């Protein structure tokens, strides 16, 4: 749409631009600054070009953390998206239960993230936690503080519990907007429920699902609070995801150069995947 030009609108944007500049651009530039310089203390910096980037990209520790991160994101996407769609399909579209269901679904999303981590931390404790103790009573050898497998299972369970609701709510919105006539036509055509799902519901949810997947990818790839509170990256470094590793490097070891370089690589990965997604989504819109 080509509206009539009104230059005064630009003035309204200035406060936002200033805020974004202060909160995002300047720190980002600082990080870029650190990533291409080296310091030995005393606030003296030497240009080091791409040294840090080379080091980081060759570092086994980085590879490990990146690998774990990718495994984490892949797993939760594979679980949360189908699960979310399935739950959305069972939710009622009309009637008094709609609000109840929506509220129930929204509840996990409202809990502060560190509280989520703390909740699961305590609940999964093998000796006194409700979940941990019950599992051990049932004969399952479960201890997330000592066993990497238990730690991973707990981590993934926590994320699924926390974030599936988002996929549910988005899918539900997509499902509810499908006109009734499509279902009526499918009934008349004799289509079974699987066919109805495959040929009507899923295609009509495409746009909404793309957004859901994009959001879940970005959030899970950058996740920090919950795993940090739950396992702190342990046992050992078995659940040290990329963000946790980064914080350890930057604040723990105070290696600003490598940390800054890792941050930028991290940022670029997220940017790249999001851009690919966005382009695919836009191309789908046009066709």
């Amino acid at each position: 749409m080509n509206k009539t030009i009104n230059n005064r609108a630009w003035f309204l944007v200035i406060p936002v631009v200033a805020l974004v500049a202060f909160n995002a651009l300047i720190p980002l530039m600082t990080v870029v600054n650190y990533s291409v310089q080296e310091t030995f203390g005393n606030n003296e910096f030497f240009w080091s070009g791409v040294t840090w980037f080379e080091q980081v990209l060759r570092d086994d520790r980085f590879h490990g953390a990146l690998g774990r991160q990718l495994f984490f994101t892949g797993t939760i996407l594979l679980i949360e998206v189908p699960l979310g769609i399935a739950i959305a399909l069972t939710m009622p579209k009309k009637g008094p239960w709609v609000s109840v269901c929506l509220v129930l679904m929204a509840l996990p999303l409202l809990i502060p993230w560190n509280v989520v981590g703390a909740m699961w931390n305590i609940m999964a404790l093998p000796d006194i936690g409700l979940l941990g103790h019950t599992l051990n009573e049932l004969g399952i050898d479960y201890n997330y503080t000592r066993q990497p497998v238990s730690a991973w299972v707990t981590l993934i369970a926590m994320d699924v519990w926390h974030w599936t609701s988002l996929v549910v709510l988005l899918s539900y919105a997509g499902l509810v907007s499908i006109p009734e006539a499509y279902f009526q036509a499918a009934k008349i055509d004799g289509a079974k429920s699987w066919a109805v799902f495959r040929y009507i519901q899923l295609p009509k949810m495409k746009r909404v699902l793309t957004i859901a997947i994009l959001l879940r990818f970005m959030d899970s790839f950058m996740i920090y609070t919950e795993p940090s509170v739950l396992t702190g990256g342990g046992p050992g470094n078995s659940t040290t995801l990329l963000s946790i590793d980064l914080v350890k490097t930057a604040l723990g070891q105070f290696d600003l150069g490598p940390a800054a370089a890792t941050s930028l690589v991290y940022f670029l990965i997220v940017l790249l995947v999001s851009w690919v997604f966005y382009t695919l989504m836009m191309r789908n819109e046009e066709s």
Partner: protein
Amino acid sequence: MAKVTLENLAHTYFNRADGAAEWAVKRVNLEWADGGAFALLGPSGCGKTTLLNIMSGLVHPTHGRILFGERDVTGLSPEERNIAQVFQFPVVYDTMSVYDNIAFPLRNRGMAESEIATRVAEIAELTELTPMLKQRAAGLTADGKQKISLARGLVRPDVNLVMFDEPLTVIDPHLKWVLRSKLRELHQRVGTTMIYVTHDQTEALTFADQVVVMNAGEVVQIGTPVELFERPQHTFVGHFIGSPGMNVLPTEIDNGKAVFAGLPVEVANPLSGSADGKLELGVRPEFVSFGTDGIPATITSVADAGRYRIVDTQASGHRIKLLVDEGEAIPAQDTYLRFDPGQTRLYRDGWLATEGVAR
């Protein structure tokens, strides 16, 4: 294919319907002969879509039953009734090609692929979709998609009934003619019972051999387009069908003759009996003409509709419209009107007046 009978059908969407207004369909008894082209015509909210959905099985009626032939199908689901329905806006399966869309109902019934291929080719040829069979259904225009909906409805060889729910709503006006003729042609070639639901009289009257006119949940008249036009049994039908609708004027009986504006008017159904109830005269604008004597009237406006003109007149405080062909003269302001006696009728309380028993 079978005769469809609606027996004592009534339906309400409310749990407890006390007032008459809450019944969407009041008491309908209808028989649709096998292989006919029917229209269900009425204004918005008259219950025609409810009736359609009852017939297709999407709505279970509160009372009454439906029979296909001798079989009671009231409890059956849509796919068990073997019917087809084309909706107001095109319903196509976006991810499939046109071919797959049309084949879908057949595949769901487990038909062999070779048989499906023959059948789809046949129907595609009928609906002029043959060049587009390989294309993705989502890429077609609105009328193309409606044709796919139509094809999907016709492709099953044993379909009992095809129903159209205002199918031309989203079609471009200059394409409506084409699709309308296509639907009629299809009926003449395929021969399945077809019911067309609409509020548009042109669509109903051109498609159907028999039209059922509904208003407020009840059937008002059933007849051929000509019967409905020439002999409306209720002033509603007279008003609803025909553009402009029938002129309805208050009248009294004086000495056995109908009187309007103090002058006697010849009618096709004179009443010799009692004259109780609200009496009205109905005459279509097509059957009113100018004359040198008759009912005095003043011309208030002339609207040009191309091949004819609609003249609005005032006579004795009432509005009377008449149609004048292109090229015919229209007199000056004050003139006289004559009603064709063979096409002027007496109505009592809205219904066509008959001797003796009041309706």
